[in-house]
């Protein structure tokens, strides 16, 4: 079993010091890893990342993060990343990280993701260059996510996003802004490659729980949704699944 703590949309600024330290200082008693699903700052300045980095100094488990749209606002996302990495945070964008926890490997494929909407009412790469650029960006990030999840060799695999892969975890947000909150292309990528869990943030008025078309659990861990310093997900490999797999193999052998 791997115990995953996760939170998004902490929106740190110069006035945030001490806000989460008391909770994060004992995350190691409940979880093996802490995942941050973007919007770590209010508008992506180095100083804001420094405040967050200092806050994370008390965390005694590996911290893996993706950035969110707020972290890009000042065109200084590389500075935000630099400050977090300096404090030991693993920051992913179209990349993967694997850590070993109690003999098991835990892999994360991370990307901010982007918008475009959901099947049936989604944007397509048609028309003006600006519209095409919008959806090409989402397509590129989704393709990279699929590639990374497919290559990720780990006992447990998690997709860490900022934008939502499904509309169910957006319930509570205004329907008009769904295309700016996520894209089905992210879910399609994860469903194609496989994953044990998808985490995202971004939707402050959304719901915590949803599932992809092929059954991957999706959790919106935006702080205003959780109202707690993090959520904890214990990932388990079921014995029943192992038995079923053996039975399937036996049946396959008999069929031959």
């Amino acid at each position: 079993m791997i115990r995953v703590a996760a939170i998004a949309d902490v929106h740190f600024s110069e006035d945030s010091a001490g806000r989460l330290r008391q909770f994060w200082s004992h995350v190691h008693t409940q979880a093996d890893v802490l995942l941050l699903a973007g919007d770590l700052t209010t508008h992506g300045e180095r100083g804001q990342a420094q405040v967050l980095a200092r806050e994370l100094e008390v965390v005694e488990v590996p911290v893996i993060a993706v950035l969110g749209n707020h972290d890009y606002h000042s065109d200084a996302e590389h500075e935000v990343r630099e400050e977090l990495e300096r404090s030991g945070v693993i920051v992913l964008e179209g990349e993967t990280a694997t850590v070993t926890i109690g003999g098991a490997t835990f892999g994360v494929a991370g990307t901010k993701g982007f918008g475009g909407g959901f099947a049936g009412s989604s944007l397509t790469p048609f028309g003006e260059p600006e519209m095409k650029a919008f959806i090409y960006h989402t397509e590129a990030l989704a393709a990279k996510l699929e590639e990374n999840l497919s290559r990720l060799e780990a006992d447990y695999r998690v997709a860490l996003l900022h934008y939502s892969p499904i509309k169910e975890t957006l319930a509570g947000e205004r329907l008009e802004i769904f295309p700016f909150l996520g894209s089905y292309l992210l879910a399609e990528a994860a469903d194609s490659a496989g994953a044990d869990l998808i985490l995202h943030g971004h939707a402050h008025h959304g719901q915590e729980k949803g599932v992809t078309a092929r059954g991957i659990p999706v959790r919106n861990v935006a702080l205003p949704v959780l109202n707690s310093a993090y959520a904890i997900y214990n990932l388990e490999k079921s014995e029943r699944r192992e038995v079923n797999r053996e039975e399937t193999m036996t049946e396959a052998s008999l069929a031959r």
Partner: protein
Amino acid sequence: MNADYQYLVGKIQNALATDPRVNKLDVKVMIVGGRIHLIGHTATEERKAVIAQVVRETVPEMEVRNELNIISVAEPGQPEVISD
């Protein structure tokens, strides 16, 4: 909604998104009876006050009702078991 109010709501939301003092995208702005109501949540009392200040500077001629809630942060609940 009054047509002019619609444009004002857009103007206020644009200011909240782009003013570096707040950069806030999730405030619900309603204009009713000539008053601006701000609904949603933010992290601290200080941020709540600055949000209202930005709105007052954007539309100085209207009264602002600051109805934002402060997000409470609690200890995490029980773990959820996710099995494959």
